[in-house]
């Protein structure tokens, strides 16, 4: 399928030079690569610059609340396993406000693909430090520098045994599309952390800064099935920025063997007739 088909013809309200443009392109290319019809895809987003992508891609969309992206996505996927559900939002939404939902849905292992736009800052609210901002990162809200250490989302996901953990860089459109396609194809919870510069607010982690530090895991002979190696990559010093599939495993998903989820999708089942309910009421007679 042609990737143009997935690009909605609307004005994009992102700043010039924003990494989100490229991520949108990578997502469309991944969907085209997988030949997924737009009506079989649900893009679930929260609030933030990245979350606007639900309006910019031709697919079903659930643009919900800030931080609740993964929770809503899990509800959709559990009701409709016939749909491909992608939860996509920024680092503030997924790792800050929504951290708890991320933890527990990795544990649940719902078959979701989570794409995190990680630019280390809050774009929509004008530049505050995000959970992935380095310690000491100065903003108007953190004038003395962020006092907290940066969250390491890859390490978090590997520690929780997320079945698919990868990192991408927005500047590499083809490579990012490929890793998103792999994540969608992988059964179970997948996290793709997509690093991207914020030319408006982040003057430190610029394109040039990233290009100097990127290393490609497949070129390093990294084995994503080796959890210890994956953890070493995910907890790395930060001097090098690993790109590619960090960790890959198979473990039972939420739906596997679930007594209710076998059979027709819950969201498409018929309403009960009164006679089907009478045996239930007989318990009280």
């Amino acid at each position, binding site marked *: 399928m042609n990737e143009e088909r997935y690009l909605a013809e*609307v004005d994009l309200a992102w700043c010039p030079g924003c990494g989100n443009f490229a991520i949108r392109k990578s997502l469309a290319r991944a969907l085209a690569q997988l030949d997924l*019809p*737009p*009506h*079989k895809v*649900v893009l*679930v987003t929260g*609030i933030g610059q990245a979350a*606007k992508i*639900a*309006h910019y891609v*031709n*697919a*079903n*969309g*659930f*643009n*919900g*609340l800030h931080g*609740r992206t993964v*929770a*809503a*996505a*899990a*509800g*959709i*996927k*559990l*009701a*409709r396993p*016939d*749909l491909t559900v992608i939860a996509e939002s920024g680092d503030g939404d997924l790792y800050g406000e929504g951290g*708890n*939902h991320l*933890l*527990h849905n990795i544990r649940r292992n719902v078959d979701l693909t989570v794409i995190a736009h990680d630019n280390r800052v809050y774009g929509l609210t004008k530049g505050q430090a995000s959970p992935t901002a380095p310690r000491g990162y100065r903003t108007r809200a953190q004038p003395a520098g962020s006092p907290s250490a940066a969250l390491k989302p890859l390490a978090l996901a590997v520690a929780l045994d997320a079945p698919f953990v990868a990192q991408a860089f927005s500047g590499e459109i083809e490579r990012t599309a490929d890793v998103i396609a792999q994540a969608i194809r992988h059964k179970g919870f997948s996290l793709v952390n997509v690093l991207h510069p914020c030319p408006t607010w982040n003057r430190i982690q610029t394109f040039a800064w990233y290009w100097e530090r990127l290393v490609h895991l497949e070129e390093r002979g990294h084995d994503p099935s080796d959890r210890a190696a994956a953890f070493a990559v995910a907890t790395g010093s930060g001097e090098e920025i690993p790109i590619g599939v960090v960790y890959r495993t198979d473990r039972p998903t939420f739906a596997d063997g*679930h*007594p*209710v*989820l076998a*059979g027709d*999708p*819950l*969201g*498409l*089942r018929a*309403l*009960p007739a*009164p006679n089907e*309910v*009478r045996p*239930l*009421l007989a318990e*009280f*007679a």
Partner: protein
Amino acid sequence: MNVTVRIAGAAGQGVQTLGDILARSVFRTGLYLHGEMSYHSRIRGGENAFTLRIGDSPVLATETKADLLVALNAEMLVLYRPAVREGGVVLTDEGVGEPGDGAVRLPAGRLARDELKLPIAAGVVLLGAAARLLGLEQERVSNAIRSAFGDRAEPNLRALALGYDQVPDRRWRLPPPQFQAGEAMLLTGGQAVGAGAIAAGCRFLAAYPMTPGTPVMEFLAGHAARYGILVEQAEDEIAAINMALGASYAGARALVTTSGGGFALMVEGLSLAGMIETPVVVHLGQRPGPATGLPTRTGQENLLFALHAGHGEFPRYLVAPTDPADAFYLTMKAFEVAEKHQVPAIVLTDQFLVDSYAVVPALDPARVPVRDHLLPVEELNRMGRYERFAVTESGISPRALPGVSEKLVLVDSDEHDAYGRITEDLAIRRAMVEKRLRKADGMREEISPPEIYPAGSLRGKRVLLGWGSTYGAIREAVEKLGDGYAHVHLRELWPLRTEELRRVWAEAEEVVLVEGTATGQLGALIAGETGLRPHRFVPRYDGRPFTAEDIIAEVER
């Protein structure tokens, strides 16, 4: 005629199980009953009491005084003995209390230990004695024990028989059966909400455990496999309502169940439901607050909170069932209203209703029609462009599910256009606000009027006004107070129907609000909508349910 039995013991002594067995035995005898469970928030120790009122007509309230007290330990004897009616009987173990204190002291603990090698069965021995005093057939109680204990029934059946042997004969003569098998049902309010949800086609429940929301979760979990319902324990209440909204967007009728604190966490999600016009039903079991409050007690403090929860303006439906039958039908209706009008619906109960047993007329799931309110797929396929939020006269936009046709379905928590795309066009904003709010007009037409008892004019009468689970206590008080009193009760509280209320105020001598709060929230609500205020207020905020005696004492004061 009424006989009231109270079984009281420490948590862990099996008060609930004994109460269940006694309630089921009385129900099988063809008699009405109300069984109120009162807990301390502890798993072991603390006070648990089950108060069972037996009657020849429906009983929907509890009472303070008892005719027969079964005290499982010394603390309960001291605590509840003063609440035994003149001429009543107190049963306890021989090791409890003092000889000559008027209690019937039986060797229950000794028999359970020595004869049955099962010390916990002491309670069943006392239950046997109580059942005999009540004139219940031993076989009926045995059957109830079999269904309660399953393959562990045998020693308990022997304990029951030992109990029957301990007292000479019956002390009370129960009325003849009042209904035939199949004409009535015995259930709690919590079970009724769960059963109503299943009957309405609920397919998804996400909840974080919180008393008294949890019994609904457990009921659905117990029936999930058979009726095809996904029951998932969410990481928090915020997740619960957002998961439910996701599931509902995708086509699964969805429920969340919680109490005030959990509902507070859901509030942003409730607002989202209003904005994306996605149905969800919230069961909100009230308990006294603020904050953690009295976790296992009852109250009605969340009426205004539930009505005002959520930033921004959007319509909602709110019901407060009066008893288990009402809880069944109104939960069904809540799902239907939520689906038809694409709004959040709140079923407002409380610990008293959720945990209390009552005998009600047999439930009929056909009474509330369950309809598919979605846009048929053939129609969707015929459309050019599908607009999820098309502006209509009723305010209701034809709702389609994602993935059932090539038409895309987009919803957005931002203000959006008819398609669902984010917009800052302020003309569209105005049209969307008006469209959403118009739905309340259609909902109001489907609201049942307040119940007025006795029917007819209220001239010269004092009206006791209430809502929700206080129904039984207020009705009983009005019946006992007799001429000159009437009962007006609201069960569908929002959108509020005001025409009947204006008549009540126009005709009645005095309107007395009876409510489980310290501030009189229904009074504030009605005043806000009509300018009419209750003349008097009977509050209750000690965590206990209202009884008719309390209301009469306050009204006559």
